[in-house]
């Protein structure tokens, strides 16, 4: 069975890699298998990991104290009104709840992690080239993200410096991430040449 799994994985990997040449029936086959199986797996995983332990099991074991779980359960059921032409509008309630909750939670999280933490980390003494570059970069990049002021004159100059900072940071991130992708490729090659073809010892 293990050998069958290795052969299946190797052949599907080659089918996906055939995309590098052009779109072809082998890639289409692997793509549809991948999408279909993963979508089905997701449904089963959601039922077993979310629906049963968080809703069904608590309601069955202690309905008296957990009756409030009917509210999210009802919101979940309302999503299925997407299939009804007449009652389609009921879908908007669970969507509004999820969107509002997401936005509300994100406001404080972003303010804390992205704004306050950045401000605190940038308030450094200007006693080294590193600190001067850091403070200058943060301030110039912030000016670039001013949308109500045209990037002309002094504002334009500072914003241009901000763009330079951004591009240098992107270049560094690009190189770093490409290295990580190469390691993924190496992993796949080890599977094909080692586990499958036994060419690697």
């Amino acid at each position, binding site marked *: 069975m293990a050998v069958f799994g290795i052969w299946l994985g190797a052949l599907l990997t080659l089918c996906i890699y055939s995309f590098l040449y052009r779109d072809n029936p082998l890639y289409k086959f692997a793509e549809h298998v991948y999408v279909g199986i993963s979508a089905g797996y997701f449904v089963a995983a959601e039922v077993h990991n979310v629906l049963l332990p968080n809703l069904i099991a608590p309601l069955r074991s202690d309905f008296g104290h957990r009756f409030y779980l009917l509210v999210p359960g009802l919101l979940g059921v309302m999503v299925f009104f997407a299939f009804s032409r007449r009652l389609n509008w009921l879908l908007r309630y669970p969507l509004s709840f*999820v969107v509002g909750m997401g936005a509300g939670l994100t406001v404080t999280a972003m303010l804390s992690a992205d704004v306050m933490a950045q401000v605190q980390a940038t*308030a450094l*003494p200007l006693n080294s080239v590193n600190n001067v570059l850091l403070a200058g970069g943060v301030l110039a990049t912030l000016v670039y993200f001013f949308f109500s002021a045209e990037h002309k004159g002094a504002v334009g100059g500072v914003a241009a410096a901000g763009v330079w900072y951004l591009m240098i940071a992107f270049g560094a*991130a690009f190189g770093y991430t490409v290295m990580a992708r190469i390691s993924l490729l190496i992993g796949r090659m080890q599977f094909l040449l080692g586990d499958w073809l036994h060419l690697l010892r």
Partner: protein
Amino acid sequence: MFNPRNIARWLAVLAACANLSQAAKVIPPPPAEPAVPAPVSRFTAADVPNDGGGAVRLSWAPSPFDSAALRFAAPDDPARAVKAYRLFRSMGRSGEYSQLIEVGPGTTEFPDEGLANGTAYHYRIQAVGAAGGLSPVLEASAVPRASWFNGERTNMVAALVLVAGILLLFIVRARSGVAMSIRKIAGLAAVDEAIGRATEMGRPILYLPSGGLSAVSDIQTLASLVILGRVAAKTAEYETKLLVPCSDPLVMALAREIVKASCMEAARPDAFRPENIRYLTNEQFAFTAGVDGMMLRERPAANFFIGTFYAEALILAETGYATGAIQIAGTAMITQLPFFVAACDYTLIGEEIYAASAYLSKEPVLLGSIKGQDWAKAAAIAVIVAGIALETLALRFPQLHAFAAQWLLPK
């Protein structure tokens, strides 16, 4: 020579000796008590502040015979040195105490978690000596409670009130008719160009409101869906096919609602095609493979990748580039932005995707919120500059560092 009286005396002496040795064997001397260490002091139990409840913090000043303590006093007998502290807990003051934990020397506090809110818990502490001697017991009690307000986040509330106040002020001003403008954003200015190109070529437009891992509650996905609404209105107006593959069922449901509303707004309800807004899968790379296939088979003339993207960003952008489509991308994911910059024609960087809705709609209320955000950024710049100045001056006047830490940049 032989005197019977002497024999009797000797026998009596021998008998007395035998009795004495027998008595020594039967009644051993009483054992010595193990040396007792000095007890801890200032033992307190208190509800943990600024938490969701269910926790009590126990703290104490160490025994003077604790070798890890700052004020260590070497005992006259090494056996009296503290080996550990034993903590006991009971639900009632006169109830049975059970051992909670034994902690090593040098420990001066312990958080007891997983408790019931509103219930009184009673604690005891006892120092254990090197020879096993136990110090006198100290007692303390506490009732764990949930806090309504986290006092440590007061600075966050102040910042939130400040930012929200600035935003509301400018929204009110915009509503009252004060003219507000927004600078040109290259990526958004190209939206109309991309839609026009697809219309001229008679090919569809592909719009991804997120990558393969995001959810509908993700703020970038929400920003992307707002832009989708503007793109959908234009495509409905031009009768251009709009493909929206989704990796989340709720994103798909919301995208359908938005596109439907946009088609109505454009007076083209017949342009709404729910089957073109598809759910593929939640699996990141299966979703990527599916979208790649769509790009190669449907041959869209314009691709929009706006929202949260992870490792799929480069794969998608490269495939779109290979098909010759005009590509507009936008994300706040710093690690993926370089790939979009390299492989797409236009890239919305970070906050530009949040400004897009105001830019595309030109609605006064949204423009007012953009203006408000700019002022909030100006406030952040002012705080940073003040912080830098104080920290630099603190090199010469160290007391300024404490001032800045307390009043300007509290953690």
